[in-house]
């Protein structure tokens, strides 16, 4: 919460964000992700310096919801263009051009379809920000001291404490069993 200071000396468990484990190869991360997925965890993530092929499926992540925003934006844009030109040319400033009707979807089409593209683009970017929870200026994993190596040569798997299946001991044991190194608690 912006503007609110954290309480003094909160209990340790309250401050924990989750557990982070380190993997050395994309293959190890992929296999670990499959097991975490199969163990039924929901709130967890993988950190990799580059896109790992097949990681989406290994994590059980479905397809993005952004296209729905795009479609809604496109339909809105098309209707906006049509209604705008219909109102302007038929009522607000009716002008006879070359004996054409005051309104026809034909000449409203180029503008409507430009607006379709424009609104689709806006909705896609906006929808992407929304589903990703952007802008996000801070994330607990940034406090992890080796996190920068997740942008160069190491792979991390983070399980959040907010996950219903999270249990400090069992989850740590699971990550260890998957070959994760240097398992650490992240500060919340």
């Amino acid at each position, binding site marked *: 919460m912006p503007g609110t200071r954290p309480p003094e000396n909160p209990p340790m468990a309250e401050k924990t964000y989750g557990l982070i484990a380190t993997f050395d190869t994309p293959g190890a991360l992929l296999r670990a992700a499959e097991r975490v997925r199969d163990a039924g965890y929901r709130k967890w993530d993988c950190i990799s310096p580059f896109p790992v092929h*097949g990681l989406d499926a290994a994590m059980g992540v479905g397809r993005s919801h952004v296209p729905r925003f795009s479609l809604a934006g496109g339909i809105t844009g098309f209707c906006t263009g049509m209604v705008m030109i219909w109102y302007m040319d038929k009522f607000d400033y009716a002008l006879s051009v*070359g004996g054409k009707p005051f309104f026809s979807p034909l000449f409203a089409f180029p503008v409507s379809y430009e607006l379709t593209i424009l609104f689709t683009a806006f909705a896609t970017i906006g929808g992407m920000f929304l589903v990703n929870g952007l802008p996000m200026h801070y994330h607990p994993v940034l406090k992890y001291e080796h996190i920068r190596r997740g942008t160069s040569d190491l792979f991390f798997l983070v399980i959040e404490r907010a996950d219903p299946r999270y249990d400090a001991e069992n989850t740590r044991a699971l990550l260890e069993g998957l070959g994760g190194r240097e398992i650490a608690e992240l500060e919340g």
Partner: protein
Amino acid sequence: MNNPGARKALLVGVAGTAATALGILVSGPHVVATSWLVAFGFWAAAAIGMLMMILIWHVFDSSWSVVLRRQFEHGLAAFPWLALMLLPLVLASWLGQGDIVWPWMNPLHPVHGDKLVQADVLYEKKEAFLNIRLFTILSVVFFALWIWISARLRKASFTQDSDGDVRWTHRNRFTSAFGIPVVALTLTGAAIYWFKSLEYHWFSTMYGVWYFSDCMRGALSLGVIIMLWLHGRGDFRGILKTDHLWAIGQLMLTFTVFWAYISFDQYFLIWNANVPEETFWYNIREYGDWWYVSLFLVFGNFLLPFLLLLSYRFKVTHATIRRIAYLILFVIFIDIAYNILPALKDEKGNPLAFFSVRLLWSVTSLAGVGGFCVAAYLRSLPTTKLIPIRDPRIGECLHQNE
């Protein structure tokens, strides 16, 4: 010929051609020859689209398409057959009165306003281009260039299977860099000569691009059908990935939008300018049942495939994308018929109706020309490896992942 599939296709071709020839007894040579042109235009579009697609893939060094490219290379084997399919129309124009298909080939053909072609000022202005000699020469040149470029692409790709030399890839890239403008110009010239000149009063700078969009849609849809056929037969098991279908589905969506863009542009500019030499072309296409064909094109050729292809799931589900591919092939056939068949006029100058027994000859021609083209593809298919095993991009293609 030890190739039962090709033999069957050839039989379909012969049967379709024979049925079309019988149509002359029912509907007369003018109607049947024009119907043959519809089918020829459809299959030529598919072959030109395959050629263009291969050239584009080489120029962009595309990796996902490598396994499909081999199938399109086999498809290019249809060009000599297509040249043979056009031959009867050209021969009949030379030997008969001239206007068996293209009215301007007969100087005594009546045109609107109780005139003859030879006295028509719009014909006189275009006579340097619209004469049967240049038509024949350029048709030969178009096919010669397509066959030559196809042969270069096929030879380089097929030889690479045995020697694995990367120079063949470089050579194909070179062929493609000059091949794209050559094929773009020749397909535009061909569309203007073979189809647009049926109503030579008309102007449209969009026409070549319109035909190009049908070429691409036809080739891509056939690509989907071929890949799924090979997958069903077992050949493409383990080769065909979800992402191949996703990629080709996106291109199908692109060219569906592209077709709509081109077709709408053409209509919109003519509607806006409102010049009689241009509007008549659309006026006759709103006459009688052609009005419904026009509307079908708006909704069936654009809106329905557009909405279906927006979906990721539809693009990667075998049964669904196959149906969409057949739908697109059907609608571009109607689109080509819409561009050609209204050139058939009754004695008052109105276009003959779309729904009639005449439509049958377009369908038999479709089987006729198609049978020979498919036979050419099937005869070429077993002559090489199934996929270009030593193409530098084959590894990337087989591990295709979004």
